């Protein structure tokens, strides 16, 4: 009897500790994209977020001088390797000789999250890259 209670207790503490940790840190690539990227790349990834075209949300400011990449366009996205995409996310436009309006996320996201985002972008463009 006592061993049974003991085992149940150990088992449930173990489960709570495990799921607790998972829930606190698991953020999917989609959630990261929604939180960080859509402000410029748009909710549908087509490059028309509020920062890119303020007039679309009813704010009278000029368009962004460089249009954020349309992540659903296979032609544009196929020009990039996965490594190109990872460098762009981590170091921003400056790291891949593109506009600095694309900011660096290397100190905000972990390497694993950047890899996951890259895979997510491949789903958006339905393309594999070069």
């Amino acid at each position, binding site marked *: 009897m006592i061993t049974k209670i003991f085992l149940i207790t150990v088992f449930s503490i173990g489960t709570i500790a495990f799921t607790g940790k998972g829930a606190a840190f698991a*953020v999917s690539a989609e959630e990261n994209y929604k939180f960080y990227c859509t*402000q410029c790349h748009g909710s549908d990834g087509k490059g028309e977020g*509020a*920062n890119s075209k*303020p007039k679309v949300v009813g*704010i009278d*400011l*000029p368009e962004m001088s460089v249009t954020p990449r349309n992540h659903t366009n296979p032609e544009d996205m196929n020009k990039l390797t996965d490594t190109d995409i990872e460098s762009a996310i981590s170091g921003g436009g400056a790291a891949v000789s593109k506009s600095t309006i694309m900011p660096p996320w290397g*100190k905000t996201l972990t390497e694993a999250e950047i890899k996951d985002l890259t895979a997510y972008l491949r789903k958006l463009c339905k393309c594999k890259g070069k």
Partner: protein
Amino acid sequence: MNASNIGRWMLVLPVTALFIALSWGVSLADGKGIFASKNCGSCHQIQGPAAEKTFDDQLKKKGPELWYSGSKFKKEWLEEWLEKPTTIRPLKYNSVTDKNTDKHPALSKKEADEVAEYLMTLTAKEVAKGTAEEKVTPQGKNLFIKRYSCVGCHSIKAGAQKVGGVSGPDLSEAGKRLTADWVYAYLKEPKVFKPVKRMPVFVDIINDNEMKTLAGFVAAQK
């Protein structure tokens, strides 16, 4: 009357006195009391430290933190704004798709002065004095617009026109509102002030001197 009865009276009398005072509106007439009675705390965090850990923690918030107000704001701006609030964030708080059309609660001049007095007592030890000088310099402008493209998410004035993005607070008049010391601390120690936000962490990307130049540039926009 025994000892425990005396104890009870010692509690009841002051409490009664307090209620009478409250109903006359006497002890409410200070900034802290106004803040509480107007329910400002239902949207604003007034006590540090920052406790957000997840996107949800941030997305649940209804307004910006005020627990470091005394380090962040210039007092004259605070007094004026609390009486006649204007839009600071072009998009609704926590939204990246909806224009901010909210009307912020306004206070009378007297209330505004008292609440400002109270908010200015809330300071953060991480904000040191005299770190950055409020100054528009060509270097500052270059860092803000070209090198780090802060302008992608924040609007500023370019001559008579306003330019820039809308997901971050409007910085075109940030010099009336923000202190350079706070802006520097905000860039340098983002986790202290805002651990979960849509702005990238720039620690180890922008060097210390550049952060000071940027902070000075932002806090000189008028």
